[in-house]
């Protein structure tokens, strides 16, 4: 079980995966808009997306859990 964390505070611009999706390490999983840029969040490990804790438009804090992969 691994958590994918927000690397910075910002707004969720786009969620690129769905629950149940199989992902590999370094896959693009989410975009956070911050500092006028769309910053890609990459999977820190591979597995299956078990839970997505945010949705498009949500504001997230630095370090917030974005999704859980197992």
């Amino acid at each position: 079980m691994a958590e994918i964390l927000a690397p910075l505070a910002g707004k969720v611009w786009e969620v690129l995966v769905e629950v149940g999706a199989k992902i590999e390490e370094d896959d693009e999983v989410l975009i956070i808009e911050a500092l006028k840029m769309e910053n890609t969040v990459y999977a820190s490990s591979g597995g299956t997306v078990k839970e997505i804790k945010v949705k498009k438009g949500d504001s997230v804090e630095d370090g917030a859990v974005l999704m859980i992969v197992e």
Partner: protein
Amino acid sequence: MRPYFERMPGFGKPLKENRIARSKDSRASLEAVEAEIAAARKAKEEVGIPAAKINERGSMTVWQRLEYLVDPGTWQPLHSLYNPAENKDGTTNVVDGLGKISGRWAVIIGFDNKLLAGAWIPGQAENILRVTNLARRLHIPLVWLVNCSGVSLAEQEKFYAGRRSSGTPFFRHAELQQAGVPVLAGIYGTNPAGGGYQGITPTILIAHKDANIAVGGAGIVSGMSPKGGFDTEGLEQLIAVTRDFKERPPGRAEIHYNDTGFFTRVCDEEKGVLDGIKEYMRMIPAYDPAFFRVAEPAAPKLAADELYHLLPFNQKETYSFEELLARLVDGSEHMEFRPEYGPEIYAGLVKIDGMAIGVIGNRQGLLPKGYPEYADYPGIGGKLYRQGLTKMSEFVTHCGRDRIPVIWFQDTSGIDVGDTAERAELLGLGSTLIYSIQQVDLPMMLVVLRKGSAAAHYIMGGPNANRQNAFTLGTAATEIYVMHGETAAVATYARRAVKEKDSGKPLEPIAQKMNEIAQKYYDTSRPAYCARHGFVDEIVDLKALRGYLQAFAGAAYQNPTSTCPRHLLLLPRLIRG
């Protein structure tokens, strides 16, 4: 230094399926812009009299001459869309680029004999000055295909006079020769006055049998000594003299071969002139590339086509600069300089066709927490901070010491601003980088991958470094402006908006004006605009970028004015530690 360069650390990862899927639209947008540029380039090639008609007259077009002259597969066009004076035909009436002739790199330029018989027109002198600067910077021959009818008389006031006018290139020819850069000229057609000096100022003159070069052409000679008006008697005389000069224009090949000896040779066939240039190119000093190679040439391990999925067309989307670079350099290998320091900047050594090249580029996206170290706000790629500025100066200085040419890649929104940034000396460090670039006196080239903005566009090896920047390329995603259009609109109208609000006036007119400014910035920063106005020297397809990198590396190492023995290089040792 073989152990340093033969097998450098690999970088770049295979492209992921989800990236390919997600970037389909971006790829389509990039390719649409590339198609638009290609169409504009094609339109320029077809300007003027149709090629078939020129051929019927027994002449080749400048394009056909280039095709015969340049080694197959080596032509890298420059200034294809350059048209700073906005001439209606969309051209400066010269065609130029880098190419190999007889296996040696040269800067090659020719007058387009399909339009106004290759006349001088507005904007052309600036085009030629870029070309002479390029030959000087790369220290490689300048090859001219002269076929120039002289001044387009209807517009002479736009380019005849002034410091950077159509006469300036003649002095540049002298400057090149004094710097040990030969200028070879193949001469065709009628070249009076300005055309005559285009013909006479190079080093070696090879003429076609029907070519002429003269102080003044038939038109001038027959019309000299104005009497203060025209009458029929005067016109009868003029017609008689003009007929004679049309038959026997001044400065014919026989005069400048037999009498003056200016022409090195005269050829019966058009192709003979080009064969002559090829022959002279074989006499030009040029190191065999093997002399400077630090390793065997190798193609990148990762495909150039993948660049279309890695460089987002959307200016706000971040990406990995290293993933792009890995698809452009030999073996997808590099040696990174100070990776832990100045994380917004990539600096490192790569190989292009086996030759060592320094690379500097903007990283995009998030920077490590706590960076920039002098501020309490987060840093973001594309911007420049204290360490990145320092690292660039350091790297450039080491490249200068090791005589390693530098390729810059820009995608920058500017330098950090505000009192905190001022206290961190960013103004001084930007200026230090300018000083370092000027001090090292190295061949450099620049690729503006996406954004070239604010002073960062200047200091990161921008075209403003006239003596160092050999040429600048753009891509389909390039946009160049002092700041984003919306930022400019705010800077222009923010105070006025406050005043209007306080005086109870409607705000819609201000909003409209702000939108107009933003739109104008957008329109005047597109790739085609950048190319037309010379912000870049060419917009290049992503898949064609490596060809220009190879031309730059090959030309820069062909006959350098100074060298560093490879076993005395310092930079690789500093990197390895």
